[in-house]
C-alpha cells in the first residue's frame, strides 16, 4: 500500500430521509494538504466528514483513496488509514488517559499491546503534551486537555487521512493556535491528508492550504483561502458583511449591521 494517499470525492449525495444533507459534492485532496471545511451550522460539514470516515453511506457517488473505492475496503484496513475525531466526545465509563490514547492502536492489535505500540502511544501523548496526564482519569482533566488527549489518540492511530470535526472550537486561544499548528506540521511532515471543520474563519486563513466552503449541503467554493474567503462569498454563505484586512497577515473582520447599534 502506498504510504501517501490521494483522496478523491466524486459526486457524493447523502440523504436523511428526504432531506438532502450533501449533494453533488466533489473534490480532490493531495497528500500533505491541510483542508479547512467551513460553513454555517447545517451546511453539511459533519456529514461530509462522517461520509469520508465511512460512518455514513452515500446514496450516490463514490469516494476513492488512491483509486480504490473506500466502500470496498475492509473495516480493519480502513481503520488503519482513516482517523475520525467527532465534535462531541462522550465517554460512558471513564478510562485513564493512557487507555484512551491506546485505543488508537486498536486496528493494529489483537490482545496484547506490543512494545512498539506502547512507544507510539507515548510519542503521540508527548506530541500533544498530555504525557504528564497519562494515568489520570479522563473525567478529571480539563476540556482542553481532554481534546488534546483525543488528538493524541488519533495520532497514535497513525492514519493517512485525518478527519477532525471542530477540534478546537472550545479551546483556549493558545491551544487553538498550537494544536492547529501541530496538526499542520504533522500533515506536512508525514504527507497526510487532513480535513478539519472549523468555525473560525481566521484560523482557516492562517493554517489551511485549501478551504472548502459549504452551504446547504453543496460546495459553494473550493480553493486557496484568499481565493475562497472573499467578502462576497462570506456574505452569500454566512449572511454577514466582512472586510478583508491585512495586518500583518490576511484576516477577516466581520462588520456590524448598519441597523441597530
Amino acid at each position: 500500500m502506498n504510504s501517501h494517499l490521494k483522496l478523491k470525492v466524486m459526486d457524493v449525495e447523502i440523504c436523511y430521509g428526504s432531506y438532502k444533507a450533501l449533494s453533488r459534492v466533489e473534490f480532490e485532496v493531495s497528500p500533505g494538504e491541510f483542508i479547512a471545511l467551513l460553513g454555517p451550522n447545517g451546511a453539511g460539514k459533519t456529514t461530509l466528514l462522517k461520509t469520508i470516515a465511512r460512518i455514513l453511506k452515500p446514496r450516490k457517488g463514490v469516494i476513492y483513496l488512491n483509486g480504490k473505492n473506500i466502500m470496498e475496503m475492509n473495516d480493519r484496513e480502513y481503520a488503519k488509514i482513516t482517523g475520525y475525531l467527532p465534535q462531541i466526545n462522550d465517554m460512558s465509563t471513564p478510562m485513564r488517559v493512557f487507555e484512551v490514547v491506546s485505543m488508537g492502536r486498536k486496528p493494529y492489535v489483537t490482545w496484547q499491546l506490543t512494545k512498539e505500540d506502547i512507544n507510539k502511544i507515548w510519542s503521540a501523548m508527548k506530541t500533544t503534551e498530555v504525557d504528564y496526564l497519562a494515568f489520570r482519569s479522563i473525567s478529571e482533566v480539563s476540556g482542553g486537555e481532554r481534546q488534546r488527549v483525543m488528538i493524541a489518540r488519533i495520532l497514535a492511530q497513525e492514519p493517512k487521512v485525518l478527519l477532525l470535526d471542530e477540534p478546537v472550537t472550545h479551546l483556549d486561544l493558545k491551544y487553538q493556535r498550537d494544536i492547529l499548528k501541530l496538526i499542520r506540521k504533522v500533515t506536512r511532515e508525514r504527507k497526510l491528508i487532513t480535513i478539519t471543520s472549523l468555525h473560525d474563519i481566521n484560523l482557516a486563513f492562517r493554517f489551511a492550504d485549501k478551504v472548502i466552503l459549504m452551504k446547504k449541503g453543496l460546495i459553494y467554493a473550493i480553493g486557496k483561502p484568499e481565493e475562497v474567503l472573499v467578502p462576497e462569498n462570506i456574505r452569500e454563505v454566512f449572511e454577514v458583511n466582512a472586510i478583508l484586512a491585512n495586518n500583518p497577515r490576511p484576516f477577516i473582520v466581520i462588520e456590524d449591521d448598519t441597523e441597530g447599534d
Partner: protein
Amino acid sequence: MKINATPFFSFKRILLISSLFLAIIPVSFLSIAIGAYNLPISDVVKCLLNPHGENPAIIAYTIVWFYRIPRTIGALITGAVLAVAGALIQGITRNPLASPFTLGVSSAASFGAGLVIIAGVKLALLPQVFLQTPEGYMIITLAAFTICFLHTLLILTLLFIKGFSPESIVLAGIAMAYMYSAGITFLEYFAGESSLKEYIFWIMGDLTRVNWGKIYFLLATLLITILAVYLFAWDLNALSLGDDVAKSLGVDPRKLRFKVAFMASLTTATVISITGPIPFICIMAPHIARLIIGSDNRYLLPTSIAIGSILLTISDIIARTALKPIELPVGAVTNALGASFFISMYMSIKKGKVMSI
C-alpha cells in the same frame, strides 16, 4: 511519567487480578468445609485429597463429593458467567446498571419454568409428583432454556432491525419483561397451592440444583464466557468512546452489540435455567471490579470473573449457614447483599461525580 511506568502500571493490575483469582481457593475451600452436616476440617481435607475414596459409603465422602463440591463448582461458574455477562451488557448499553436481566432473560426463564411447573401440571400434561424427580427437574431446565433462547432470538432480531442503539436495547428489554410479567401473573393466579410454592422456590434461585451431570453444561458455558472475554474486550473499549469513534477504529457497533448481546444472553440463560434466576451478581460484580481495576475491559472482564465467583460462593455459604439447617435460597442472600451494596453506593455519591474510577 516515564515510559517505564507503563509496564509497572499493567503489572500492578495483573498482580491485583492474580491475587483475586488466588482468593478463589480459600473461598472454595470454605464452601466445601461448611454445611449443615458438621464435618471436621481434617475429614474434609482427607476427602479432597482422595477423590476415589476407599469406601464410598462413608458419609463424609458422600457429603463432600455429592453435595458440597458440585454446589461450590456451580457457585463459582455461575458467578463468573453472570458477572461477565453483566459487564458485557453494561459495555454495549453504556449503562453501568444494565445486565442481561435488563434484556428480559430472567423473566423468560421464569416464564418457561412456570409453564412447566404450573401450566404443565394444571393441564395434566405432567403429574405434579414427577416434577420433584431429577427427570422432572431436567424438564423445567429445558423449558426455561428454550423460552430464553426463543426470547433472545426474538429480541435480538427486533433490535437488529431497529439499529441496536443502547436506548432501544433497554426499552425492548423492559417491554418484554412486562409481557412476561403479565404471563407469569396469569399463571400464578391459576396455580394450585403446591404448584405455586414450587414455582416461587424456583424463581428464587438455588444452587442445590447443581449436580455432577449439570456441571458439564456449566463448564461449557464458562469456556464460552472466557472466549467472549478474549473476543470482545478491545471492541467494547472502542465502543465506549462512542459509536462514531468505534466505527472509525474499525468496529461495527451494530454487529458488535448483536454478537455480545447474543453471547451474554445465551450464557446467562444456560446457567439460570439450571439454578433459577439469581439477582444482582450481574450488576454488583462488574461494579466492584470497576472500582478495583478500572473500566478497561481487558482487565475488567477477567476481574469480573474472579469477583463474580467469589461473591456468589460467599452468598451461597451464607445461604446455607445463616439459619442452619434451614436452606435459604441463594437469591435471597444476593438480593440482600445487592440492596446494601447499592445503599452504600448511594450514600457515597459525591456531588457531581457518580461513577468515577
